């Protein structure tokens, strides 16, 4: 019964009269609770404001290349936020979010390159297209759980970049040649160079994305998603249409990642099928786990990790950068298996205990 996991598995779980949580890979990842206690909320808010001030001033102190890197960090953060809604909140695993990132990027690039559409308009369109693609992918994925879902999404990540190379689409995608995009200038005569402008645009979109994700998690929808994660049979018996919500979670998750992909294309100014190898999907999962599965602000730290740590690894050893990156990842997992979110939670718990006793 446990080996041959199929749709009947849910029924059988009910049959065995236990109806405990879902089986699958996601459970293996420990999910930190959001820091809840009120004193902790204050600390978190202060930290958030400090981060925001840093984020608002950084582009006036950094060089253009660092601004570009910070922008990419935010973009990865948005993509990881989307993955977190799927995995951390809804308990579905994806090794294929690079595919949605790629679809978002190609949507933006083709719209700008072929149809001369303004770059800002490409963002909502990329979001909507990725929502639809994600939702449609989520429908058959309903039948899969744990390792099987991981495999299906893995296949998605591997196949999607190949699709952009196919000759029927070459007219639009330029095949392996890729598409070059020109960098947008700051509008309305704002005294910002293009790098600064794209940074602030990304920051604004990232903030909206974060606030929406937070609202979602704290709402009826978010509770339904978490209920499915913790116990799909009980969620169904409480009236949650589990199939619909799981597909919608896939759609919304892909929407986030697709908008990130579109921003990425605009910021990098060039895309080709090889920009979106399977490595990208793995990087997003790494970012998710490092930040803390189920902890939304962790997306920012996950984005920073996958943006900067490979560079650090490269600096430590040119030839063995991949191995060094891997070693850093293993060390991270060993030191903080629940990610930064888990570490923070443990620290805050210890702090509030000490302030109570002291």
């Amino acid at each position, binding site marked *: 019964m446990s080996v041959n996991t199929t749709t009947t598995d849910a029924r059988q779980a009910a049959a065995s009269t236990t109806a405990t949580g879902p089986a699958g890979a996601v459970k293996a990842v420990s999910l930190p609770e959001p820091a809840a206690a009120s004193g902790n909320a204050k600390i978190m808010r202060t930290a958030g404001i400090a981060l925001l001030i840093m984020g608002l001033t950084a582009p006036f102190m950094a060089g253009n290349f660092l601004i570009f890197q910070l922008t990419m960090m935010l973009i990865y953060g948005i993509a990881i936020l989307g993955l977190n809604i799927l995995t951390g909140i809804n308990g579905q695993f994806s090794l294929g979010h690079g595919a949605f990132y790629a679809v978002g990027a190609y949507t933006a690039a083709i719209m700008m390159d072929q149809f001369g559409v303004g770059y800002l308009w490409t963002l909502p369109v990329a979001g909507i297209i990725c929502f639809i693609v994600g939702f449609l992918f989520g429908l058959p994925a309903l039948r899969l759980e744990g390792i099987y879902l991981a495999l299906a999404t893995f296949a998605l990540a591997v196949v999607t970049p190949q699709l952009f190379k196919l000759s029927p689409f070459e007219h639009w995608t330029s095949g392996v040649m890729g598409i070059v995009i020109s960098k947008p200038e700051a509008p309305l005569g704002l005294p910002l160079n293009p790098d600064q402008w794209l940074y602030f645009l990304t920051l604004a979109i990232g903030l909206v994305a974060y606030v929406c994700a937070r609202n979602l998690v704290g709402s009826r929808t978010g*509770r339904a998603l978490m209920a499915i994660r913790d116990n799909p049979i009980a969620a169904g018996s409480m009236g949650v249409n589990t199939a619909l919500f799981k597909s919608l979670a896939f759609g919304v998750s892909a929407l986030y990642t697709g908008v990130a992909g579109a921003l990425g294309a605009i910021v990098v100014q060039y895309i080709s099928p090889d920009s979106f190898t399977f490595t990208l999907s793995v990087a997003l999962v790494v970012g998710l786990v490092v930040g803390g599965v189920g902890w939304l602000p962790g997306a920012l730290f996950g984005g920073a990790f996958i943006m900067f740590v490979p560079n650090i690894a490269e600096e430590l050893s040119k030839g063995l950068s991949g191995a060094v990156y891997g070693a850093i990842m293993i060390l991270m997992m060993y030191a903080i298996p629940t990610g930064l979110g888990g570490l923070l939670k443990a620290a805050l718990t210890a702090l509030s205990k000490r302030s109570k006793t002291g």
Partner: protein
Amino acid sequence: MQANTASAPPQLAVRDVVVRFGGIVALDGIAFDLHKGEILGLIGPNGAGKTTLFNCLSRLYTPASGDILYDGNSVLSRRPHDMPAIGIGRSFQNVALFQRMTVRDNIRVGAHAASRSDFFSDALHLPWVRRQEAAVDATVSELIDYLGLGAVADLPVEGLPFGTRKRVEIARALAIRPGVLLLDEPAGGLNHDEVGELGRLIKSIRDDRGVTILLVEHHMGLVMSISDKVVVLSFGRKIAEGTPAEVQQNPDVIAAYLGGPAE
């Protein structure tokens, strides 16, 4: 057999329900009626088919034949997540809560079917969603008080004592505002005092909240003291039905419980 059957049509009617799992017949033509305002005790040795019947009533299983009517309408075409809106709420034999969510959020999920929203409105936290959340919160707070869960309301469910979790499950089922509440062995794992408290609670749910109750339970003291009617299952068949006093004297029931003729 007709002890409690009034002239009013039953709120819940189980009609000749048959369920098979491969070779075994888990339910073999079970039929009984549940009337509004009743507490019906469903008893029988382990493996008799009680949980299987509950899973049919909450549509996790589909009977091979027979029918289940709620207020006169068949529910067999409905899906599991339709049942709360129809009026059937349940608890699970081995507590099935949302472990990583707080007690309050667990109970809020019970109000899912009675409220509306969509991803878009929830993500933007639109005013109408906020008003609805306020209404849900009022319902949930009342249930937290009713079940004495105030002290643990904002703690995650995992790690709470078993008895507390059982009460959370009942609170969650009540948030559905069910017409009929299915309780699957709510006294299992509880100590003597807790069982007494549970008995008063179940009576109060019926008397004060007007909820009809179908109670599966092994604790005979509890079943016999609060049930209006008792149905006895053994190996998938109904072997007796009647008042607690009638059932207790039934020789078939005594035999079934002493591991009698069938084996």
